[in-house]
C-alpha cells in the first residue's frame, strides 16, 4: 500500500483538527477520494452573514480535509432551473443546496445519504418529523437529501397596536384573530397579508388559511381534495378577514408587506425573522422604534387543531454524477456538525432554523425572546402538497399560485368560495394527473 502526499496531508489535517475538533476522527475515517474537488451551488444570501459564515465553514472543511470547494451562489428564482439543468445533463455542481421539493423531483439522480443522515440524527437528538419527510424519498426510509434549514412564517405584529385593540396577547384562535383585525382597522392600524402572486408571503398566508381550517390540496394518496367544505369555510373566513386589510393587498408581492410594516402602515403581517432585524437595526430612529414595538406569534389555530405554517426549506443533495461522492457526503456532514452549523445558525439571527432537534438549545434561541418563536418552525411546518407527497406537482401548484389565486378571487369578489374552490381543483388536477 502506498501513501501519497495527499493522504499524508489529509491524515495530517485530520490529526491537527483532531486536537481541537471532536469531529476529526470521523473525517479521518472518511474515505475521501484522492484529488477530490467539489463544486457547490446554493441560494444567495438573504441575511448578510449567511454567505460569509457558509464560506468560512467551507474553508474550514478544505483546511480539515485538503479538498478544495468552490461555492457558487444563485438567485432564488434561478436556483431551481440550475438544479434541473445539473440533474438533466449530469454535469455541473457536485452538491446543490436547493429548494424543498427539488431532491424529490430528481431523487433518482441523487446519492443515497442515509448513512450520514442517520448518523447526524443519532448525534444531534434526531430529525424533526417534517425534516424527515423533506429528506427521505417518498414512502421509503432512504435519505436523498439533508434538509439544512428553514425560514419560518409566523405573525409579525405591533405589540402596542394589539394592546390598544384590547388584546393582552396575540389571539390564538381564528375568531379572536378576526376580531383583532377588525379592531385594528377601526383604530387605523390595519393588518396586511399578501394576496398577489408573491412566491413566499402570498403562498405562506393562503396555505396557512386553508390548512388551519382543516383543508388540504391533496390527500395521502395525492388525490386532489382542495374542493372541500373545509376549504369553503377557509374562503368565507378569508373574505371576512380581507375586509379588515389595508387596501392594495391583492397586488402585493413579497416585498410589499415589508415596506408597509416598515412605514408603519400596517400592524400585523406574516414574515421571516429578517423583517424584524431589518427594522430593528435601521439607522432611522423612527423605524428602529417600530422594531422595539414588534413581536412575533404563531398564526392562529383553527379546526386543524395545531399550529401550521409553511417553511422555506433549503434541502442539500449530492448528485450521482460527482466523481467524488465520499467528499460530497463528507462535506454535507461537516457543514451540519455543531461546530459549523451552530455558528451559521447563530450568525443568521435565526433566519435559518434547525432540522435537528439538538440545535433547539442553540444560543441563538437563548438571547432575544422575541425571536424564540422561529425556533419551533419545524414543529409547526407543513409542506406544499400537504397531505400528500413532496413532489413535482406540489411544487408546480405552488409556483402557479393556485391557492393564492383561489383566495384572492374570493376576496376580490370575482368568485364565490364554491366557484374558487372548484377552479383550484380543476387547475390542481392538471398537475396531479399521472
Amino acid at each position: 500500500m502506498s501513501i501519497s502526499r495527499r493522504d499524508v496531508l489529509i491524515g495530517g489535517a485530520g490529526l491537527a483538527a483532531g486536537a481541537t475538533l471532536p469531529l476529526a476522527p470521523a473525517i479521518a475515517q472518511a474515505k475521501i477520494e484522492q484529488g477530490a474537488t467539489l463544486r457547490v451551488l446554493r441560494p444567495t444570501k438573504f441575511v448578510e452573514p449567511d454567505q460569509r459564515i457558509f464560506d468560512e465553514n467551507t474553508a474550514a472543511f478544505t483546511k480539515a480535509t485538503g479538498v478544495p470547494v468552490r461555492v457558487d451562489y444563485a438567485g432564488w428564482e434561478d436556483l431551481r432551473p440550475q438544479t434541473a439543468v445539473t440533474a438533466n445533463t449530469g454535469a455541473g455542481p457536485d452538491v446543490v443546496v436547493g429548494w424543498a421539493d427539488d431532491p424529490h423531483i430528481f431523487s433518482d439522480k441523487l446519492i443515497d445519504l442515509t448513512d450520514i443522515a442517520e448518523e447526524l440524527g443519532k448525534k444531534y437528538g434526531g430529525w424533526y418529523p417534517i425534516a424527515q419527510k423533506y429528506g427521505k424519498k417518498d414512502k421509503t426510509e432512504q435519505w436523498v437529501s439533508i434538509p439544512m434549514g428553514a425560514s419560518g412564517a409566523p405573525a409579525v405584529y405591533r405589540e402596542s397596536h394589539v394592546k390598544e385593540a384590547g388584546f393582552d396577547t396575540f389571539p390564538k384562535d381564528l375568531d379572536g384573530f378576526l376580531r383583532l383585525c377588525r379592531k385594528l382597522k377601526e383604530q387605523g392600524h390595519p393588518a396586511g397579508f399578501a394576496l398577489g402572486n408573491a412566491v413566499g408571503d402570498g403562498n405562506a398566508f393562503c396555505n396557512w388559511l386553508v390548512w388551519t381550517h382543516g383543508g388540504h390540496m391533496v390527500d395521502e394518496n395525492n388525490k386532489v381534495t382542495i374542493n372541500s367544505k373545509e376549504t369553503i369555510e377557509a374562503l368565507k373566513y378569508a373574505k371576512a378577514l380581507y375586509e379588515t386589510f389595508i387596501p392594495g393587498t391583492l397586488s402585493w408581492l413579497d416585498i410589499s408587506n415589508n415596506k408597509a410594516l416598515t412605514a408603519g402602515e400596517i400592524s400585523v403581517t406574516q414574515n421571516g425573522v429578517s423583517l424584524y432585524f431589518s427594522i430593528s437595526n435601521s439607522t432611522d430612529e423612527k423605524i428602529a422604534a417600530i422594531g422595539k414595538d414588534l413581536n412575533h406569534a404563531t398564526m392562529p389555530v383553527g379546526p386543524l387543531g395545531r399550529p401550521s405554517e409553511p417553511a422555506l426549506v433549503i434541502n442539500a443533495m449530492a448528485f450521482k454524477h460527482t466523481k467524488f461522492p465520499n467528499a460530497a457526503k463528507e462535506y454535507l456532514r461537516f457543514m451540519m456538525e455543531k461546530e459549523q452549523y451552530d455558528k451559521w445558525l447563530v450568525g443568521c439571527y435565526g433566519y435559518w432554523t434547525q432540522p435537528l432537534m439538538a440545535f433547539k438549545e442553540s444560543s441563538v434561541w437563548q438571547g432575544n425572546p422575541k425571536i424564540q418563536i422561529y425556533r419551533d418552525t419545524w414543529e409547526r411546518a407543513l409542506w406544499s402538497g400537504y397531505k400528500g407527497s413532496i413532489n413535482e406537482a406540489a411544487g408546480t401548484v405552488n409556483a402557479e399560485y393556485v391557492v393564492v389565486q383561489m383566495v384572492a378571487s374570493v376576496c376580490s369578489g370575482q368568485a364565490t368560495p364554491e366557484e374558487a374552490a372548484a377552479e383550484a381543483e380543476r387547475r390542481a388536477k392538471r398537475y396531479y394527473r399521472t
Partner: protein
Amino acid sequence: MASAATESRTVTGRRQSRLVELFDYKPFLIFLCLLPAAAFLLVFLSYPLGLGIWLAFTDTRIGRTGQFIGFENFVSLWHDRVFITTVGNTLLYTGAATVGKFALGLWLALLLNNHLPFKSLLRAIILIPWIVPTVLSAIAFWWIYDPQFSIISYVLVDVLGWRDSYIDFLGQPWPARWSLIAANIWRGIPFVAISLLAGLQTISPSLYEAAMLDGANAWQRFRHVTLPMLMPILAVVLTFSVLFTFTDFQLVYAITRGGPVNATHLMATLAFQRGIPGGQLGEGAAIAVAMIPFLVLATLFSYFGLARRKWQQGEDND
C-alpha cells in the same frame, strides 16, 4: 521512376486545376461564402425555434425528458380559462398600447420636426424611457402604482385633496391592466417618435411648398403628403412595435407577476411562469408557440396591408 513522378505531378496538377475550376464556379463560391452565415442562422436561430416547437408537442418537465404527446398541450390550453384570459389580455395590451404609442409618438415626431428651440435637447430627453433598462423603469412604475406609497395617490389625496383614498392601481383587474398599458406606452414612445421623426425628415420640403401653393391647409398637407410619405416607415415601426409589445415580459413580470388573479398575465409571462418556476417546459413552450400565429398575422398585415400598397409603386391606392 521518372515517368511515375511525372504522372504523379500530372495528377496533382489535374486535381489543382479541378479545385481552381470549382472555385471559379460562381454558384459554388456563393454557396461557400453563405455557408458560415447559414450555419449561424441554423444553429442560433432555427435550432432554438425548432426545439421550442418540438417541446410544445411533448410533456417535458424541467429535469426530465418528455414524450411526444401530439396536440395534448394545445388541447389542454384551449380549455384552460387562465390561458384564454391571458390571450385576451395580450391582445388588449398589444392593441391599446400600440394605439397609444403611435398616437403620442406621431404627435411628438411632428412637434420635433418643427423648428423648436433646444430641439436636440428635447430629442435627447425623449429617448430617456428607451435608454433606461426595462426592469428599472418597471421598478419605478411599481413604486408609482404602489397602493400605499404611490406618488400619484399622494399628490391627489394629500397635496390636492381631490380624493379621499389612495388609488389601488394594481389590486383590481381593470385598473391593473390599464396601469400596465400606460407603463408600456411610456416606454415605447421614444422608439415610435424617433423612428417617425427620421421618416419625416426624409420628406422633401418641396412637396409641402407645392401643396401650399395648391391651397392645402395643415390637415390636408398631413393627410395627403405627410401620411403617404411616412407610410413605409410607419409600417415597419408598427410591425416592430406590435412584435415588441406582444412579446413583452419584463414590465409585467416585474410589476405584477401576472396578478391580481391572472388579470395581467400576458402569453409571454404565462409561458415563463408555467415553463420555468412551474417546471412544465412542454406546456410553457406550447404557450410560446401559440404566440407565433398572432405574430405572423401582425407581420403579414403590416407588410402586405401597409408597406406593399400599390400607391407606393406609383399606382392608385386600392
